[in-house]
């Protein structure tokens, strides 16, 4: 049986109108008497869908429109144009039935009562979402165990570490059994242990409960560990929509070149030669990192061949390694291209 479509977005555009401010006192007066406005498209004709059981990773540089899209999907904001259906309804109507079926975690923003123990917050959420008490107790036991919350339930939220707080936020977003979970940068500021625990839990939970998860993150590791589909968004438009493997393969036209010298440091002349070879004029979109005994560059595969040959000709007794880049590097490369105005 085909999984249900939870999110259906068609040609969704969100445009902001911002009042422009001019510098100086004269500018302030002018702004008051004759205000000027500028228009900015935060999202531009975005079309996508999300099915039950799917974890969709939403990636993009700062200001790409990720948080705006979450706000549209949760009904906090209304699209300027296009059609948007979440769980079969228009989210901006913000019906009680709709809000009861979604869970949201904003990594930077707490939804819990800051000065009350976590347990009180969760109990309150149980009443707010009209969840049966026995069901609540069962879910609380589950999250205490799965996220290691037993020791923190009776502590006030303000006394928790960031990692503990985010795990409690995730529990609070899931305890009422939503069909759709939005996570807006949930792992920001978390240490590696908390991040790993959270990723593992989200993956297992989505698989067990067949819920849809939409995840935005700056941490590519989150997307790689959890998402089975990824969307790259740039300047409000979708630049890629597909599996992570496809993303990597599509951009496998990139390689990381590592030039290492054994037992000594590079001589200044050698560095100069390497810089000359690897310089952006030869490999326009390469990223070069120069260390005392290593030089690495992320560059397009087609330029790498000539560089390898040229490096070998330098007669430095250096080893040359060619690596497939990890997702982080792929994205770094493409976000850089985004900034320079290139499209995929």
């Amino acid at each position, binding site marked *: 049986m085909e999984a249900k479509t939870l999110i259906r977005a068609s040609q969704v555009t969100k445009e902001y109108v911002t009042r422009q401010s001019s510098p100086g006192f004269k500018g302030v007066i002018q702004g008051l008497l004759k205000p000027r406005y500028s228009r900015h498209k935060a999202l531009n004709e975005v079309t996508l869908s999300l099915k039950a059981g799917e974890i969709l990773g939403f990636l993009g540089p700062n200001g790409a429109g990720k948080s*705006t899209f979450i706000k549209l999907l949760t009904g906090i904001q209304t699209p300027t144009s296009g059609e948007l259906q979440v769980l079969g309804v228009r989210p901006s109507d913000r019906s009680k039935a709709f809000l009861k079926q979604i869970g949201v975690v904003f990594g930077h923003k707490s939804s819990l*009562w800051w000065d009350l123990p976590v347990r009180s917050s969760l109990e309150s959420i149980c009443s707010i979402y009209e969840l049966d008490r026995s069901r609540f107790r069962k879910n609380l036991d589950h999250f205490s165990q799965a996220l290691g919350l037993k020791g923190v339930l009776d502590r006030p939220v303000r006394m928790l570490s960031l990692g503990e707080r985010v795990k409690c936020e995730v529990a609070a977003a899931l305890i009422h059994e939503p069909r759709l979970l939005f996570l807006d940068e949930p792992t920001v500021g978390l240490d590696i242990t908390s991040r790993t625990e959270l990723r593992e839990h989200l993956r297992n939970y989505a698989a067990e409960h067949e819920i849809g998860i939409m995840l935005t993150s700056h941490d590519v590791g989150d997307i790689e560990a959890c998402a089975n589909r990824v969307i790259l968004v740039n300047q409000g438009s979708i630049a890629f929509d597909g599996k992570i493997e496809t993303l990597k393969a599509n951009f496998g036209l990139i390689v990381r070149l590592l030039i290492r010298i054994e037992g000594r440091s590079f001589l200044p002349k050698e560095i100069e030669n390497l810089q000359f070879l690897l310089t952006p004029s030869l490999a326009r979109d390469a990223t070069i990192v120069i260390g005392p005994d290593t030089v690495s560059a992320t560059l397009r595969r087609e330029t790498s061949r000539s560089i390898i040959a040229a490096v070998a000709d330098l007669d430095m007794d250096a080893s040359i390694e060619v690596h497939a880049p990890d997702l982080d590097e792929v994205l770094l490369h493409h976000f850089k291209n985004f900034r320079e105005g290139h499209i995929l």
Partner: protein
Amino acid sequence: MSRPRLTFLESSLPYAVNAARLIVMDRGMFVADFFLATTVPFLMQFLIWSYLYQGSSISRSFGVLSLSQTLFYYAFSIAFGRLNNGYDVVSNLSLNVREGTLEPHLLRPVPYPLQKLADFMGGGVVYSVPIILVLAVFVFIPPVALNSFFWPGWVLLVVVSQILCFTLSWTVAMMSLWLVRTDFALSLLTTSAAFFGGELLPPYLWPEWLRPLMSYNPFRFMISAPAQAIVTMDGGFVMTALAWTSFYAIAFGCLSAFLWRQGMKRYRGAGG
């Protein structure tokens, strides 16, 4: 799986309970509110009015209330001033907007203004304790005839005065959605409540040309109208005050609902 057909009122109850818990838990605020903010102003009024009423027939012409009625008027007014204080309503929304932390609350199945109303009413349960204490002294020390018709009207007046306080404060709080800093809104609210609320002087002691303003402004119905009603035990005044208070509560309710809708259209919050 889930309990059916709970109303908004029931699902907003946890907000009220948590607000009351937070006030009780915060012992510093509890002490400051109950002892410093209520007893010190009362002591000052006690000393001033005891002196003015002392033996002199001239000083008696200050008002239509006896000394004990005047003192009870102030005790009740001060207690109502604390109960119907919208400072937190304005400052909490302002903080949420400025720090961009409104979103998680907007996504609860209880509308945000209703969450805040429940918060306010929950806090009111704790802040009604001083009123109950003054009421106990008022009813039992010089015995008061328990007019069964009067009391329900007065209790209703108190509840509606709280709703008025919330809707008025919420209207002022809406400024947060348009302005960067709302300190002046807070000052405006607290100063207006202190000046127009009748905590300084009962309306009939103001110059004649100011009396209509001091008698019929909304702050008066939040603070000193319920105090005057109980001190004079005037059923007719309770009904008049109830009508005015309801009128203002509905007017500010409609205005704040309109402003909230407009404000939410322009609210963006912050991205990650």
